[in-house]
């Protein structure tokens, strides 16, 4: 019976082409709009590191000046000073610890045709690679020992390696960066993380900005005073020079703790509190503000990775879908109402109300499927349009299997929901009345 009703449904699509086209189009447009915005929301709010997101933590201390501070005010900054970062790195708390900041320096290529170009990277510590599961194509990350000795080593991303050296492995080659030589010890594999959560504060494009092109040890870049590329906050004049800035209370580094499990959060919190108490004895952190911890999801939330505009678009799209649904109900009512004589005959010949209900609901489903198919095409088109807007959006506007299936599910569910009232109305037909007027 299912098959037969399904075929009937397909056939009835042809019965009133203008009405059917309008029905399918309305549904498709509504579904496409909501799926396109939902896809973006889904990708933006995705968990970038599902296995570890609840045990990676960003610590936040408030090292702002006490003068003019009211309890409950926002903390001075979301980044940390080198003083605190150095102490955290030395602390042995948790499984791994890493700090990072952005650098930018001119790269001198051995290839004459490339000349010099500016490349952005990140200065970080050895734990960065295992902590964030960075995949290596060639070579290795640097070791804690190389961190301590401020070794002149560098890890390249696959893009920068390909640009500089082509297909061959550059491990062991020397690369000149900002006027200094570095030994290439590793090349990362393609490493796409959306949202890019490691360093969001002060990055152009935020969590959807460009991937850094190389990584080098924090200690090395501090020693060589490599140019910073990112935001920093100073509440007092740090004095002249790079070293004075590094030693000051200026905040410019991003820090991450990796704990063995999410249950270790309280022990990390108590470490942070006792650390802050200790620093207070040295005359720092006089604001006595609460010391905060954020896991990956909380950090993304706090950094407003999903902006208000994205939420607004999604709400709007669903409002629009609702309107399309109301329209579909009306159109289905129109479509079914002209079939009252047919229902009358079927009922007179012994079909139960249930049968009629089943038949008309399947017909709505067919409309839903057609709308879903067209909606999918429109959604792909809409996403392509959105991706063209900017580089950041290109990383976000792509559809995965979950969204693909959701599109169909949404379209069919919407059609069935819209079909309920017209179907019910169709079942109310009194056979005798219909037969009489024939």
């Amino acid at each position: 019976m299912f098959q037969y009703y399904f075929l009937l449904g397909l056939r009835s699509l042809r019965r009133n082409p203008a009405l059917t086209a309008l029905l399918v189009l309305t549904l498709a447009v509504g579904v496409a709009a909501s799926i396109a915005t939902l896809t973006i929301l889904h990708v933006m709010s995705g968990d970038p590191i599902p296995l570890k997101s609840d045990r990676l933590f960003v610590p936040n201390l408030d090292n702002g000046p006490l003068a003019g501070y009211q309890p409950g005010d926002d903390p001075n900054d979301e980044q940390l000073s080198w003083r605190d970062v150095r102490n955290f790195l030395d602390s042995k708390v948790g499984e791994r610890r890493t700090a990072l900041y952005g650098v930018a320096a001119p790269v001198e290529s051995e290839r004459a045709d490339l000349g010099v170009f500016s490349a952005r990277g990140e200065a970080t510590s050895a734990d960065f690679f295992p902590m964030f599961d960075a995949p290596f194509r060639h070579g290795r990350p640097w070791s804690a020992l190389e961190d301590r000795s401020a070794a002149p080593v560098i890890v390249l991303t696959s893009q920068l390696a390909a640009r500089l050296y082509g297909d061959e492995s550059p491990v062991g080659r020397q690369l000149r960066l900002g006027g200094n030589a570095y030994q290439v010890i590793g090349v990362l594999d393609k490493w796409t993380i959306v949202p890019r959560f490691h360093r969001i504060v002060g990055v152009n494009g935020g969590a959807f900005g460009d991937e850094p092109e190389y990584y080098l040890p924090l200690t090395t870049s501090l020693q060589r005073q490599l140019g910073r590329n990112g935001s920093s906050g100073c509440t007092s004049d740090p004095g002249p020079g790079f070293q004075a800035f590094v030693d000051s209370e200026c905040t410019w580094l991003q820090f991450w703790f990796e704990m063995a499990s999410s249950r270790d959060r309280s022990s990390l919190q108590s470490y942070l509190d006792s650390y802050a108490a200790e620093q207070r004895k040295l005359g720092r952190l006089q604001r006595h503000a609460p010391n905060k911890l954020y896991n990956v999801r909380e950090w993304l939330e706090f950094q407003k990775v999903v902006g208000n505009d994205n939420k607004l678009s999604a709400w709007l799209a669903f409002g629009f879908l609702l309107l399309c649904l109301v329209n579909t109900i009306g159109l289905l009512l129109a479509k079914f109402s002209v079939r009252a004589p047919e229902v009358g005959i079927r009922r007179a010949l012994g079909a139960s109300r249930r049968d009629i209900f089943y038949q008309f609901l399947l017909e709505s489903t067919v409309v839903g499927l057609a709308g879903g198919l067209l909606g999918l095409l429109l959604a792909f088109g809409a996403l392509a349009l959105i991706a063209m807007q900017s580089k950041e959006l290109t990383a976000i506007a792509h559809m995965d299997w979950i969204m693909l299936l959701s599109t169909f599910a949404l379209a069919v569910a919407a059609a069935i929901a819209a079909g309920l009232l017209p179907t019910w109305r169709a079942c109310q037909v009194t056979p005798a009345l219909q037969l009489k007027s024939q």
Partner: protein
Amino acid sequence: MAHPILSALWRNKTGPLLVATQVALSLAILANALYIVQVRQAVSARPSGVAHEQQVFHVEVRRMGVGTSQDEIAQLHRETATLRAVAGVQSAAGTTQAPLNRMGNYGGLTTDRKQLVSQANTTNYSVADSVIQTWELKLVAGRDFLPDEYVDIDVRTSTDAARVAIVTQALARKLFPGVDNVVGKTIYNGTGATTRAMQIVGVIERLQTPAGQIDERGEFSTILPARLTGYGGGYYTVRAEPGQRDRVMKEVETALRAASPTPLIVRTKSMEEYRIERYRADTAMAWMLVTVSVLLLLITASGIVGMASLWVTQRRKQIGVRRALGARRVDILRYFLAENFMITSAGVVAGVLLGLGLNQLLVSQLEMTRLPAGYLVTGAVLLWLLGVGAVYGPAWRAASISPATATRSA
């Protein structure tokens, strides 16, 4: 006239209810969407203070290493001279940042050393030459910097700072509320006893910050006469002759590279590009809202056409009877138009309430501002017109039904 229509509607509520719901939803979304579009448009249309922006572009130069302060000052002068020598360049100046380029230095200002909290957060344009000339900023009080006021500061070793400053009108008002003439007043960079004092020598009408914040802070700018060295590079802003910008941009790059004995990284970007990038999200949002609004109206119109056609089909016989009993075509037409007007009006009333509710939700959840009544009125008028326009076709077809229909069965 109204009574028979109402009682007919009452007999068959579902269809009219659906149409009214559509009108209400459309109006609620439309009014809010139009308002957001207008807000975004207003934000991205704010003037930066730079006159004739389409003539202005910026040049970023990076050198291989960082030289001594003297070297860098010499390079600054050489590069500025090279820029000015390019045909079609009207003016060029060294600066640390530019409006809307989204990279800038910000700091707190006070008007008294005893103050604990800074009074305003300003952005600092450290300039090597007169940007008042290059950007054609409008000086409303005081004067531009004198040549001997420019100081050389090496950020690696020097604690020196500029002693004079030019501020924007917005910043002057924030720092000295109620004071008419701030020229000659002293301001301090930061808080505490050791902060540097600067004397205001001029006030400009407007200069946006590199971030271009959407509130008053977007115009809290200070210009300082200071040539900063120690970065291993330079940043220049250039005004080209009208219509020459794109050519000049290319030639400037070549000229700078040719004039340098060592390899240089030179990048140019027009102010227009910076503006587009700064407001990209707002523009995209506005376009999306406009697209959705148009689709919204189309869907609603199609819904009205569809339902009205259905009613006309269902009432063929009644219309025929009415016509046979003496109703003119215009009566039938008027009937359907009046019916539609009533349904649309019910939808509009519900839509105004729904729109206010939706706006309330946006205000509380997404940091938006309250919807002015004008948008609801505009939206309502638009939907009334749409309703009449959409129903006109089916109503005309109804009016064309021949009285003879009444005599035929079924």
